[in-house]
């Protein structure tokens, strides 16, 4: 058979621009710098790696201001407070609430709020602030633009990054990072139009602190975090938890812990999922003790769960197939409901 170069060349000429166009449209992982040099890109990627878990690896002490703005049941609400945060670089930490700036509350309620903040310092330290929690899922789901801007935060020079999810979203993070150690010195979560949603900012920072007088956090809930990769078995958790079989695309399990309800001593399993930055919690209880006056019967056609919205957070809570379940995240309620549905037969 005689070869015919003309049609093949024509075909190639048609296909090449099409493929080029498709590739140009692809939203691939990139850490672009102002210069665009390879060395700059390498430096940027290194900084992203340095940011992972920086608060647990760097010794520091400083005063930090936290702000949050949201629409509550009675209109726009704000929360502003100041705290001293200390970490020894080996995983020990403490947060001492200093003052509640907004809202203006009576002294007793202010004292109550600061006490509660102290009690949940462990959760605030681990989950509240911007952090790259897993570099692979971060790379898959987010773009980080190194703006080249040098800003000063708490007396330290910082690199400014713009971080945004790859899929269409109405939020972005403006993050100022200490290039020497990867600490996030200031993180603004804002809407696309620049409206501030949350801010965490160091007002002072000491990287060689005297921590001899610091009382580090001690868990009061008996929470035991399992080593990464642990199987979700009754041997590890004390019961076999129902776990989601289908999680939103791009999310993965980053933490599993066992905790005990201090009121009825019932064990719960806490599963933490992340897209690299944001978090979603799936908490499921051990099956309740059967009682003789509860008649066994077929499962109902539908289970009812309560949905509560607090700021950007949505919480779903209910009893599915005899198990108490609580799911919370910044996702849509339907996404969280699907997470629950996929956990039960």
């Amino acid at each position, binding site marked *: 058979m*005689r070869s*015919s170069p*003309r*049609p093949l060349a*024509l*075909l190639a000429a*048609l*296909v090449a621009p099409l493929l080029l166009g498709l590739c140009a449209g692809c939203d691939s992982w990139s850490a672009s710098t102002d210069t665009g040099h390879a060395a700059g890109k390498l430096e940027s990627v290194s900084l992203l790696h340095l940011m992972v878990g920086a608060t647990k690896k760097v010794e520091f002490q400083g005063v930090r201001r936290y702000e*949050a703005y949201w629409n509550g*049941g009675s209109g726009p609400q704000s*929360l502003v407070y100041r705290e001293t945060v200390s970490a020894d670089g080996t995983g020990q930490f403490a947060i*001492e609430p200093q003052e509640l700036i907004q809202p203006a509350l009576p*002294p*007793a*309620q202010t*004292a*109550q*709020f*600061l*006490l*509660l*903040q*102290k*009690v*949940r310092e*462990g*959760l*605030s330290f681990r989950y*509240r602030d911007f952090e790259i929690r897993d570099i692979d899922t971060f790379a898959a789901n987010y773009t980080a633009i190194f703006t080249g801007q040098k800003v000063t935060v708490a007396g330290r020079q910082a690199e400014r990054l713009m971080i945004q999810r790859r899929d269409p979203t109405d939020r972005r993070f403006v993050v100022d990072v200490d290039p020497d150690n990867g600490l996030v010195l200031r993180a603004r979560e804002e809407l696309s139009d620049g409206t501030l949603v*949350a801010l965490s900012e160091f007002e002072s920072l000491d990287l060689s602190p005297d921590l*001899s*007088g*610091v*009382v580090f956090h001690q868990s009061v*809930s008996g929470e035991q975090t399992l080593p990464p990769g642990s199987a979700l078995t009754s041997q590890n958790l004390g019961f076999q938890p129902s776990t989601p079989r289908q999680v939103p695309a791009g999310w993965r399990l980053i933490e599993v812990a066992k*905790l005990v*309800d201090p*009121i009825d001593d019932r064990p719960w399993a806490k599963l933490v999922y992340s897209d690299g930055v944001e978090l979603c919690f799936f*908490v499921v209880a051990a099956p309740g003790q059967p009682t003789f*006056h509860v008649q066994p019967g077929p*499962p109902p056609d*539908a*289970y*009812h*769960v*309560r*949905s*509560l*919205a*607090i700021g950007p*957070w949505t*919480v779903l*809570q209910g009893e599915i197939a005899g198990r108490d379940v609580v799911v*919370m995240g910044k996702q849509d309620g*339907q996404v969280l409901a699907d997470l*629950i*549905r*996929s956990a*039960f*037969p």
Partner: protein
Amino acid sequence: MLPQCQAFRDMLLDAGVPQAPATGHGSVCAACASWAHSTERLARQLQTLPRAAAPAELEGRVVAALQAGHRQNRAVQAVADLGRISSPAVLDEFVDADLEEGLASPARPPSLLELQGRRIQAPSVLDRLVREEIAEPSRSLARRYLGSLRRKRAPEELRLRVAVSIQRVLSAQRALSIRTALSTGVRGLRRGAGGQPQRPIGLDAGLKVGARRAVGAGLAVAALLFVLGVFLLRPTPPLRPHGPQIVVEQVADPSGLPPFAAALLDGASGGLLSVERL
């Protein structure tokens, strides 16, 4: 933490007033002195809080919870304690009068006593059913039991699998049609670019026809590639997971949250729940 630190802190907590003494372990251990100071401040703040009263229904709930196991026994006892209620005397009179009247007047519907004295004819359909059952007892038995079985619903997973299979078949059909169209386009290209003409024509005319065909086929291929690109890059909706149906009810009251879940939400959100509650 050193054992002497733990013992020192336990001693202070047992004493009830966590105030570091000027002598002893607290005077030599800065961490324990700081802990004592911090705990003392915590205790002072706790003392300033207003005393919260237990809700009124707590007492009832505690009693109900403690006595939950005897609930059925109490219900049975309550029913047993009920007195027997006899029918009123006027009802007996009405019944007697009705029976007597029924026997006396034949125009009224027959009473029970009358019916007992007559032969009642069974409906004809019953005769037929009995005949069929006697003739083919096994068939009748099978029909009766099959009819009484509950109709089983197909599991949700089967529906999903069928949907996925249909999607695969449709995708394969689409791919086949695209392949066919592509091969047609390439055949057109070959024919236009140098393949055997169907009828003899002049050199110039042949080149023009070939060029026209090549351009036409090229455009067709480009259009097909465009359609293929759109098809491949289209966003595919995620499959809904199978599982129980979940009905979401919006609530504004966070009081139903377990305490540790409320703490988790507060910790992750920075305290938004506490502010809303306060």
